[in-house]
Every structure is written in structure tokens, then in C-alpha cells.
């Protein structure tokens, strides 16, 4: 069934975007924009694939992907929070750095074999009609990803540390008054967020595409940044939005495999147009969801 195939494709293809977008959510809730998510995904994709190729362990590769992303995130945190560099410019610089570094060190891994994650249907759940096909016939990393958005939601809304992160994003001066360093909290959020983006990259290379290739994220990091606005900085909406973007990407191949031609690009634009329309309609109300300190970044 077409709808089921497209939704299953949306989950399959949306997972990498979701990891990155949740990471960006974390950073932005602490008041920092990371336009370099694309670069963080790329180093994660290569780091993950390279470690899988060298060690033979896919699980270790996830860790490596996260670590690689986090390291690039550390560069962002250092430049922006310690040296006072502009967030947008530094983020874009990070993208070019990620492109270059992965090209320089990734050539050796193009086409090289590496173990990865293959789809493993969940017993019982995977046999459910429709739902089983959409959600429970994927690779283990995708199952893992189901938990990340709820966990982030819980962390931000229900834990003390999450409160610190949100306060860093809303009222840095309050945090300061209570003896916490807003810069430190933000740095932690940026690094952890970049780590999630790296994890997304590793999912892309070791679980989805089963290959490393230069520039293989193909704009997914930027989509993730846009998605955070679309989802109004809420983790669970980010999850839904990621699958929506994924489904938009999955519709063309699903139709083609049934013999229909489709101009993919009209469809590709749709999620961005929808985001813009939502912003135009809700306007200030959407942006009221934006963390206060983030608004200050934008209105600088």
C-alpha cells in the first residue's frame, strides 16, 4: 500500500534528520544556534563508518559518530561562547570545515566494506498490520531513536539539569545570579546537541545507506535546523516533523516503483513552504515559543 510504504520510508529516512534536529533543539533551547549541523552530521557519518570499518563493531561506530559530532560542536562552543564569534558565521564555517575534513580523511573509506545495522523486524509488533510495517521493521538504531525525543522532552521539562538548560536559554542572568555559568551550560548543550547530530550522521552511513560517501548528508543538516523552527522547539513535534520530511523524500521513489513519474522537487519544497506559512500565520505566537535568549541572538 502506497501510504504505508511512504510512511515506513518516512521513518527510515527521517531518523537521521530527527537525531540532528533534536540536537539542534537542545542547543537552541540553551540559546545557541548551530548552523553547522550539516558539518556535525558529516563528521559523524564518516567517524561512524570509519570506526565500523576498522573495529568491525557497529555499536562502537555509533559512539564514534556521536563523539566526532561533539568534537566539532566543541569548536562551535569555543568560538561562540568563549571567543564571542558570531553564531551564524561560525556555524556556516563549521559546515565547510566538516565538508573538508571528511573529504580529506574519508577518501580511504569510500567503497570500503564495513559492518552495519540491517533491518531486524521486532517479534510480534513487526507482524502487526500497517503499524508493524511502518514502525517495527527497521534497523536497531531506528528503534533506539524512538526513545530519544521522549527522553529529551522529559529531560528538558522534568529534570533539574533540563531546567538549567532552559534557563540558560530564557534568562541567562537568573542562572548567573544563582551561581551557575550560563556559558558552561550552553557549551554543554551545544556539544551534546552536536553529538546527537553526529549520531544521526552515523545512522545515515551505517544503518541507512551502508556506505560512506563525500557530502552524503546532502543538506539534511540544514533541513534539521529548519525543522526545529517548524516544530517550535518542542522535541515531540521535532519527531513528527522529521517523519513528515522523511515521508516527503520517500514519496517519489515509492511512486516511481509503481510506474508513476513525479517531479520530486515541487514536493521537496513543500515542508519549507509549510514552515514559512505556519510562521506567517502564527507569526509572533510561534516565535514566542522561541527561547528568550535565542530571540536576542536573532534580533541582534
Amino acid at each position, binding site marked *: 500500500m502506497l501510504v504505508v510504504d511512504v510512511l515506513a520510508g518516512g521513518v527510515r529516512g527521517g531518523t537521521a534528520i530527527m537525531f540532528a534536529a533534536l540536537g539542534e533543539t537542545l542547543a537552541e533551547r540553551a540559546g545557541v544556534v548551530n548552523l553547522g549541523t550539516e558539518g556535525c552530521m558529516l563528521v559523524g557519518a564518516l567517524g561512524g563508518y570509519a570506526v565500523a570499518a576498522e573495529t568491525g563493531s557497529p555499536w562502537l561506530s555509533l559512539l564514534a559518530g556521536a563523539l566526532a559530532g561533539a568534537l566539532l560542536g566543541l569548536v562551535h562552543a569555543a568560538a561562540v561562547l568563549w571567543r564571542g564569534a558570531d553564531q551564524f558565521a561560525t556555524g556556516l564555517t563549521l559546515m565547510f570545515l566538516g565538508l573538508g575534513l571528511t573529504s580529506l580523511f574519508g577518501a580511504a573509506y569510500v567503497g570500503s566494506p564495513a559492518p552495519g545495522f540491517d533491518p531486524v523486524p521486532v517479534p510480534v509488533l513487526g507482524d502487526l498490520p500497517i503499524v508493524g510495517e511502518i514502525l517495527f521493521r527497521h534497523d536497531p538504531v531506528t528503534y533506539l531513536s524512538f526513545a530519544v525525543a521522549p527522553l529529551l522532552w522529559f529531560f528538558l521539562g522534568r529534570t533539574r539539569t533540563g531546567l538549567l538548560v532552559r534557563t540558560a536559554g530564557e534568562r541567562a542572568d537568573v542562572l548567573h545570579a544563582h551561581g551557575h555559568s550560563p556559558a558552561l551550560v550552553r557549551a554543554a548543550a551545544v556539544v551534546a546537541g552536536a553529538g546527537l547530530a553526529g549520531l544521526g550522521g552515523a545512522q545515515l552511513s551505517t544503518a541507512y545507506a551502508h556506505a560512506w560517501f563525500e557530502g552524503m548528508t546532502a543538506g539534511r543538516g540544514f533541513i534539521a535546523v529548519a525543522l526545529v523552527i517548524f516544530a517550535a522547539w518542542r522535541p515531540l513535534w521535532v519527531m513528527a516533523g522529521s517523519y513528515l520530511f522523511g515521508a516527503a523524500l520517500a514519496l517519489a521513489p515509492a511512486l516511481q516503483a509503481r510506474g508513476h513519474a513525479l517531479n*520530486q522537487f515541487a514536493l521537496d519544497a513543500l515542508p519549507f513552504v509549510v514552515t514559512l506559512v505556519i510562521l506567517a500565520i502564527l507569526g509572533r505566537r510561534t516565535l514566542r515559543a522561541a527561547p528568550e535568549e535565542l530571540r536576542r541572538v536573532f534580533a*541582534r
Partner: protein
Amino acid sequence: MTATLTQPVATEHTGIPLRTALRTAARWTGALAGAVALFAVLLLAKGVDPVAALTGMIAQAFTGPSLEQIVIKATPLILGAMAVVLPARAGLTNVGGEGQILIGAVAGAGVGLAVPGPAALPLMLLAGAAGGALWAGVAAAMRLVVGVNEAVTTLLLNYVALDIMLYLIYEPWKDPHGSGQPATRPLEIAQRMPLVSGTAIHMGIVVALLVAVAVWLVLRGTSFGFHLSVVGGNPEAARRAGLPVARLILAAMLLGGAFAGLAGAVHLAGVEFKLRPGLTTNIGYIAFLAAWLARHRPLPAVGAALLLAAVTVAGDSLQLDSGLPAATVNVLMGLVLLAVLGWSRHARR
């Protein structure tokens, strides 16, 4: 009050004490040297002789044809940087150069397809500027009417612009006599940018330089430029001083978009001749960084654009002589930018 009003302009044009200047120069040199040294370490890690690689790059950049290539590459970057510089004076962040350039190229190509002969060229450039302005205008309107920040909207509009171009070249505008790859039919020779006599450089560079000088003059010597910097410095104060803040913001975005759109049309008519995927390959983003490199001053931005173009062209040597992947040059570019953005002056905190 007066101090805050005049401050942004004053810092730029009053004389800088010699000691501060020396310290700044030392810091810049240190930052750039650090970036190059880090790059050398990375090359060493790849088993490549960094001295040979870097001298190869310099040699590559200073051959005759390369100098022409640098100018050609810098042309859309200069215009793209102006699209950031002018709005930045009013405190606006235009991350949408990439999309505005694409729409400019699309508008230019549309005119080129519809209007035959040499009459098309000026119309193409005008259409490009208008298209870019329109695209930036969407972001300006959303900022002014519903209060959505332009950094968000211009970024989103980049994707819409890219998809519009891909949509057109994939089907409606695809060259029926082409090879089957998505691309429009090439512009007629008469529709292309003429070349500067005796060189391979197209006239776009003259357009770009004139625009840069115009931006410099406007920002420096006109009340419009002054008002923009007042809005950029403190919009609330500007409003209380009776300035038409909304109109100034609109004007800054429209002009910026027009420059980027012009960049797209010039790039199309001077170099590419047809729309195709990868038409801009990050020109808008590199131009954004060039503007930042120059701290949003128009004339230094020309230098920054030339520098980044030179790095790209010199980067050819990395693969032709040192056998490294082509994108390696992005590492050097990234490190230089990072050094300048973060380490060329005192930290803000």
C-alpha cells in the same frame, strides 16, 4: 543618546591609534598563522609534505590564467557579500544570499529563454535583481508584518529557491535538445556577458566593483546610510528619533536581495550560460562569510571575496600537485575563517 546614535559610524572612520593598529595587525597575523599551521599539521597527518603543498598553492594562485579565474570566481562573491553588508548595517542578518542568487539566476534565465538577441542581457540583469529583491522582500515582509526574524526566513527560503530551480530544469524548462541531464538550453552568445578585451574575465566584475563602490558611498556619505546604521544600532532610539524604521528595513533587505539576484544573473550570463543543479555551489554562504571576514565593511568585503576566491583556485594545486581530495581546500578556508571570526580580536566576554 547622541553617542549611541553616531557610534557605529564613528568607530569605522576616525583614526585608530598606532598601538591599537599594531596590536590588531599582530593578532590577525597570529590567527592566520595559527590556521595555516593547523592545516599543515592535518596535511602531515595525511602524509603530505605541507611545505610543498602550500608553496604549490601559492604558485598555483599566481599564474596568469589563475588570476583571471580568481577574478571570475570573486565576481558573484562580491555581489553576494554586498547583499549581506547593506542589510547588516541596519542590524539585519541576511543568510538568504544563496536563495536570492538562485532566484536571480532563474529570473535571468527565464528572460534569456523568452527574449532572443542582445536586448536580453540588460533585461536579464534587471530581472535577476528584481527576482532577488522579491525573494528578500518575502523575508522583509514577514519581519515587518508578522515579526518573524529574517535570519530564519531567509534560510528557509534558500531551500524553496533551490527546489524551484530544480523543478524548472527537471521538466518545464529542460532543454529538449539537451543530453537528458536536467539543464536549460544555453544562452545565445549575444545574451552572454561580454568579456573584458584580451582576457577570459567577463564584465560582471565591473558590475560587482561598481556596486561595491556604490554601497560604500551610500553607507558612508548619505543620510540613508546614516539612518540605516542608526536603526542597526538601536531601533527603539531610531523610532523615537522619528526615523521610518520599517521602510528603512524594507529598503535594506530589498537592496540586499537585488545585489544577490544580480550576482545570480551575472554568474549565469557570464560563466554558466544555463541553469543546472549545483549552479551556485554555496556561493551565497561563502559570500556571507566574506562579509563577516570584512566585518561588514563594503570595500574590505571586496578584498575578502577575492581572498576566498583565491583560496579556492589555489586549492586546485592540492589535488593536481599533492594528490589530495578536491574538497580539502574547505579545511583551509574553514580554519582561516574560524581564526578571523574568533581569534583576530579580543573576546567579547
